[in-house]
């Protein structure tokens, strides 16, 4: 059984339709990347999965076999889907440690604790009492990942991890992915950086204008196929 | 479909009909003293000044986003200003009215300086504090009878006219004229360049800033206009009631609560709303006149329900159903489809 499955998923912001029938399936333990240009609908897809946007029918999104398309975000995280939001969104009036503790608010028990997060990201341990806006962009990204992990999710959604970060910082952040996967966490990454995505994932979906245009294992996809699926030319 | 051309129009059939209706109402109001009694005239005087206050508050909260709970400050200043001018400075009453309004405007400027340091919800209570400060100051002034207040000296009243009937006629016409003039003034001002800026601020504060509208100045203008209208009403209130106390002059119930409920129930953010609201208010008041506090309880409860269920008020419900605008502030683009 798939851990996450979307079927013919449609989503809109008011009158603007952003997803036109997206179907994807992710198995337990996979790391899947979704690539696509700006406006392809990648972030919309994640926002729909985590409940910030509603799908048309409850059964359009299934998690562990259960329909979750009509649930609220606070119910979805309790089932084990945690999101690292686009733009990182730390809580500005909370310090690093309180931000991390907020991740555990839903009360799920599992391998991830404050100590484990600090081992994974030693940078955060050094600044555990700092207010989150004083962190660098890379540290904020680590904080956002750590906060989501504190919920001990079965599925981790990562929206645009590399956005606005220096290459060396991006490398540090992706270096943490294997450690997360080893705990059995399934990961769904949205990424504009194609190379980075191909290297990190077992499987890739390419989206264009709200539709899936290509999918497969990175090794099985040719450069031209990806170019066509990504840019549509 | 080929769009041949379009035209921009402002007046609609409804607005032309509304204009005709308004003319009819004005004619009727002019004729009132000929056939109605004193009680009706006094009621219409009160209707007039509540209409003026409602238009002023609508301009503040509905257009400029300045939710004030302190308009009683300027009504009260208008009351005392008029008494000072007539009873103490011996200025003839009809000259004292405009002088009072100017004085209230001058005092409003420093209060704006303080109130504008507070934003949004804090502004609301800030204006309330300012009104309280003024009330407390007047309770301390022995010359004005301190807390027990004072009466308008009889010579001031006689100054208007020795004849009671003529006096009441003058007061009636002045009040009704002020009520109607406020509506027209607000309507015309909203159509002006400055008024358009105000509507833009209402619709999107961020966007209006980016197209170069000086929001602070526009808001300050609105604050001062509203203060002047309230000051004017204050002067009329004294002429009508002939007696004033700090509690009545600076009453939050009379000059803020009632006015706010009128605008909310009638419909905030339109010129028509406060007119409808004023009518509803006086109908409710006459229906509930015998029930004491229940009258205010009902009014408050209706305002809460309207705010939650129909935030554009009674006029909003009418307007959205029939697309009528008696006072067309906006321009409409009509396509000529060929």
């Amino acid at each position, binding site marked *: 059984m798939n851990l996450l499955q979307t079927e013919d998923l449609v989503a809109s912001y008011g009158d603007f339709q952003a997803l036109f029938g997206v179907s994807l399936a992710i198995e337990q333990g996979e790391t899947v990347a979704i690539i696509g240009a700006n406006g392809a609908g990648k972030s919309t897809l994640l926002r729909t999965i985590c409940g*910030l946007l509603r799908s048309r029918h409850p059964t359009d999104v299934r998690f562990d076999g259960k329909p979750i398309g009509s649930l609220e975000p*606070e119910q979805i*995280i*309790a089932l084990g889907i*945690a999101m690292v*939001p686009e733009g990182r*969104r730390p*809580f*500005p*009036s*909370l310090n690093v440690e*309180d931000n991390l*503790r*907020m*991740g555990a*608010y*839903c*009360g799920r028990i599992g391998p991830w604790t404050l100590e484990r997060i600090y081992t994974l990201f030693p940078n955060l341990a050094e600044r555990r009492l700092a*207010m989150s806006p004083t962190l660098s962009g890379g540290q904020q990204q680590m904080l956002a990942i750590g*906060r989501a992990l504190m*919920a001990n999710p079965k599925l981790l959604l990562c929206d645009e991890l590399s956005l606005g970060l220096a290459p060396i910082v991006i490398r540090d952040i992706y270096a943490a992915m294997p450690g997360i996967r080893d705990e059995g966490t399934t990961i769904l990454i949205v990424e504009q950086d194609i190379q980075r995505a191909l290297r990190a994932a077992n499987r890739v979906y390419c989206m264009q204008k709200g539709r899936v245009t290509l999918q497969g294992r990175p090794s099985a996809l040719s450069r031209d196929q990806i170019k066509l699926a990504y840019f549509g030319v | 479909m080929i769009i041949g051309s379009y035209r921009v129009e402002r007046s609609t059939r409804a607005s032309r009909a509304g204009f005709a209706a308004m003319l009819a109402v004005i004619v009727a109001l002019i004729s009132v003293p000929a056939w109605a009694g004193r009680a009706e005239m006094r009621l219409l005087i009160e209707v007039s000044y509540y209409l003026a206050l409602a238009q002023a508050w609508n301009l503040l*909260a509905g257009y400029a986003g300045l*939710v004030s*709970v302190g308009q009683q400050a300027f009504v009260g200043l208008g009351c005392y200003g008029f008494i000072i001018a007539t009873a103490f400075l011996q200025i003839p009453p009809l000259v004292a009215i405009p002088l009072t309004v100017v004085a209230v405007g001058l005092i409003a400027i420093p209060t704006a300086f*303080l109130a504008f*340091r*507070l934003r*949004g*919800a*804090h502004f*609301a*209570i*800030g204006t*309330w*504090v*300012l009104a*309280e*400060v003024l009330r*407390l*100051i007047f*309770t*301390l002034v022995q010359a004005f009878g301190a807390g027990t207040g004072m009466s308008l000296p009889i010579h001031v009243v006689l100054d208007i006219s020795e004849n009671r009937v003529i006096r009441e006629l003058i007061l009636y016409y002045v009040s009704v004229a002020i009520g109607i003039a406020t509506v027209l003034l607000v309507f015309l001002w909203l159509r002006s360049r400055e008024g358009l800026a105000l509507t833009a601020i209402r619709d999107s504060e961020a966007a209006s800033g980016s197209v170069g509208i000086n929001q602070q100045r526009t808001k300050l203008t609105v604050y001062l206009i509203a203060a002047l209208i309230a000051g004017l009403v204050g002067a009329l209130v004294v002429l009508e009631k002939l007696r004033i106390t700090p509690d009545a002059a600076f009453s*939050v*119930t009379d000059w803020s*609560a009632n006015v*706010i*409920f009128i605008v*909310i129930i009638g419909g*905030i953010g339109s010129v028509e709303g406060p007119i409808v609201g004023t009518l509803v208010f006086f109908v409710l008041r006459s229906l509930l006149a015998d029930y*004491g*506090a*229940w009258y*205010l*309880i009902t009014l*408050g*409860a209706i*305002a*809460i329900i309207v*705010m*939650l269920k129909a935030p554009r008020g009674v006029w909003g419900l009418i307007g959205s159903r029939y697309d009528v605008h008696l006072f067309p502030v906006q321009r409409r683009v009509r396509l000529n489809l060929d």
Partner: protein
Amino acid sequence: MYWINTIIQGALVGGLYALFATGLSLMFGVMRIINLAHGDFIVLSAYLAVVVINCIGVNPLVALAVVVPLMFGVGYLLQRGLLNFTMGSDILPPLLVTFGLSVVIQNVLLELFSADSRRLQLPWLETASVRIGDQLAIGLMPTSVFVVAVIVIGGIEFMLYRTDLGRAFRATSDDPDTARLYGVNNRNIYALATAIALAVVSIAGVLFGIRTIFDPTIGPARLLYAFEVVIIGGLGSLWGTLAGGIILGVAQAIGAAFDPSWDTLAGHVVFLVVLLFRPRGLFPKTFDP
């Protein structure tokens, strides 16, 4: 000695004012709404205590055990049933709905209890005092009220900064959408914030009723005091609020020492002076997002 006495009395009242302000500040901090009926809830609590005392014949302090949970429930239902529907970017709906509530509560109390002044009787505490020197006596009751205020403010501060609930309050205040992503049910959090705010208000209301006489119309003035305390102390800092309360209390006491009718005005003037020269308050939080 006269002035020291005046200042001490003022500071002790200030504790009560800080308690008035705490509920207002909590609701504004979490939800960015100002409850214009805040003062009327203070008065409502005092009247609830009157009813409890009349029904079961207990003293006012025991009545707290009934009034506080009751007001907690009122706050929860008020937020879930009414105020949650006013939340959004527009400041008008919460202001006007709470203003409407203020008028409704005042007039319902007038209908039920008439305009007569009342007081919650607590004879032994009212008269007891500790004498320090010839002209200085510190009343046991004002002191107890002050101590209770400090304990309650400390408790709220602890809740905000040391508990999961407090963290959720602060996170929701920062970014409600992101807080939902981590399992916070905003509607429930808002309701709990209002419930706690009204529980604090009810303590303040009963203590107030023990200290002074009250009638249904005095709510708005307490709202203004609470607001002034919040602004004088600086937003977002509860110990600043305590300091603000003391400053307002002392200002009123000094005003009253010159002339009894100057007390409220003197407080207002101090508020306006702070607003003029230090619009962010005397003790603003160094970090204010």
